[in-house]
């Protein structure tokens, strides 16, 4: 099989924002783990929907309502297919955070009892930690944490050892938004099931970059966000096994999610609509559908190969710099590169690079417990996507040289 390399120059033309100048310099956008940029096709799909097809969904007998419903439901089908799930198993949410809150409130509220355990890891984003703290406080369940190996990978043995008779759920991230490691989620799902627990995977950093198949992973819940994968903000999804969704109670009430409403009680719509109270964000769902079509057309395998290649180049160049310290392993990782550079604080680095048009993230990356574990208060983070180039990595390296010069070397 001939694997086609990405035509990055052509891809860059699909993203008008990449032509911008920032402080008189061409934009070098390396903050993709925070949010990706949008191809014109996605913006056109959202605007086309609102300009030509908008009405409320699942309500009217009139033509536009039917068209809007078709647009919304066909977005559901294409997004579900993108991660290997069935259409009826995909719930639209505002994003990964809301997806996990849905599971914590609905499944957690109905199933967790005092003394039950939820097993997380030390590398979870706050969005896969705080919802569990809230439901634990409400139910008396306890949180447990699997540790990391010294080089910054998930310690699978430690995780396995922490699955006990009271473990009800193992919830972990597919790709770390700080360490750049890809967790062995299929193995973890197997361990969870063998121990009688369910498995939730936070796919926020994986769905945009990897060819995800929830059936192959074997997990029970998979959560992800649209805005990190070329889609609009404010839209994301939760995939869950249909049997679970059917047993889970609704978590928000209102229109759309009901079957029959009486003054004192109601019955619920079938899944997935049982979990979508109120008028959904139809335009954003249409945009996410367009994003998924765009990514599929480019090809996830080609995107992943391009990113691995660029990550390798970036690490080669960056680790040559005196004072460059990488967080997370050198090998077997994706394009999320967290680092420290001499005694220049991440926040100062971000300002200095910004003056050269280079956008990186500085801070704790919504990963405060992991920062404490690493013994730092902040890291700088450059994160890559399909439209990034070697020339942009070179600009980052030059920017770091300039930062060191500005600081008069390192103390």
């Amino acid at each position, binding site marked *: 099989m001939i694997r086609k390399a990405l035509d990055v120059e052509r891809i860059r033309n699909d993203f008008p924002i990449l032509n911008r100048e920032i*402080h008189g310099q061409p934009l070098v956008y390396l903050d993709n783990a925070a949010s990706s940029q949008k191809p014109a096709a996605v913006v056109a799909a959202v605007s086309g929907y609102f300009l030509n097809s908008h009405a409320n969904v699942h309500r009217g007998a009139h033509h536009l309502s039917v068209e809007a419903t078709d647009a919304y439901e066909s977005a559901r089908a294409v997004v579900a297919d993108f991660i290997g799930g069935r259409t009826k198993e995909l719930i639209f949410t505002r994003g990964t955070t809301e997806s996990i809150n849905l599971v914590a409130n609905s499944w957690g509220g109905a199933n967790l009892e005092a003394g039950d355990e939820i097993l997380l890891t030390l590398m979870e984003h706050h969005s896969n930690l705080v919802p569990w703290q809230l439901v634990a406080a409400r139910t008396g369940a306890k949180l447990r944490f699997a540790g990391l190996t010294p080089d910054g990978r998930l310690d699978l043995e430690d995780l396995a050892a922490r699955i006990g008779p009271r473990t009800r759920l193992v919830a972990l991230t597919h790709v770390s938004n700080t360490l750049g490691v890809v967790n062995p989620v299929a193995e973890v799902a197997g361990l969870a099931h063998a121990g009688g627990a369910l498995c939730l995977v936070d796919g926020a950093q994986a769905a945009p970059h990897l060819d995800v198949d929830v059936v192959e992973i074997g997990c029970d819940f998979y959560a992800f966000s649209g805005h990190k994968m070329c889609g609009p903000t404010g839209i994301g999804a939760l995939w869950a096994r249909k049997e679970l969704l059917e047993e889970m109670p609704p978590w928000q009430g209102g229109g759309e999610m009901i079957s029959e409403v009486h003054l004192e009680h109601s019955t619920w719509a079938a899944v997935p609509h049982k979990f979508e109270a109120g008028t959904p964000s139809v335009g954003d769902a249409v945009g996410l559908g367009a994003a998924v079509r765009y990514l599929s057309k480019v090809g996830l395998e080609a995107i992943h190969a391009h990113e691995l290649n660029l990550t390798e180049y970036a690490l080669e160049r960056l680790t040559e710099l005196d004072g460059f310290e990488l967080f997370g392993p050198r090998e077997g990782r994706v394009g999320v590169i967290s680092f420290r550079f001499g005694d220049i604080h991440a926040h100062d680095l971000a*300002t200095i690079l910004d003056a050269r048009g280079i956008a990186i993230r500085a801070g704790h990356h919504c990963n405060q417990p992991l920062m404490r574990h690493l013994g730092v208060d*902040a890291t700088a983070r450059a994160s890559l996507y399909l439209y990034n180039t070697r020339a942009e990595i070179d600009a980052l390296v030059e920017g770091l040289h300039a930062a060191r010069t500005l*600081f008069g070397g390192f103390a």
Partner: protein
Amino acid sequence: MNDREAPGNDHGSEVQLKQLYQEVILDHYRKPRNKGVIEASTHQLTLNNPLCGDIVELQLVVNNGRIVDAAFEGSGCSISQASASMMTERLKGRPVDSALALDQTFTRMLHGDEAAAADEDLGDLRALAGVSRFPVRIKCALLAWNCLEELVGPGS
């Protein structure tokens, strides 16, 4: 008018960066003054910038309306830590009223007030005038001063 410093001009950004990271600021960042713990402090407070992780703990000894000693602990970017270091130097021996007046002058300087930036009472702190060109960094420079306001300001 200096057209080399036109907004958006590449050279202008470099100039602004050099004004932001002056030697005196880097010196306070790398060799902070009054960093440590005052055992007998009468006032102490820790504040952080949750978005970027800067932390400053300010400790004061206040006696008869006068700040007789000041020190800080903390970690974070050069701007937040240099500002705390320079501030403690200017606070020692100063009446509380005068410290709060200095806080006002400093805050005005960070918001681009040139008269405030010329006030010699600010001492080394005047080196932080360049922060006004970097709006997202103003909160870094103000962190230690927010501690001061909460400890001895009106309503404290």
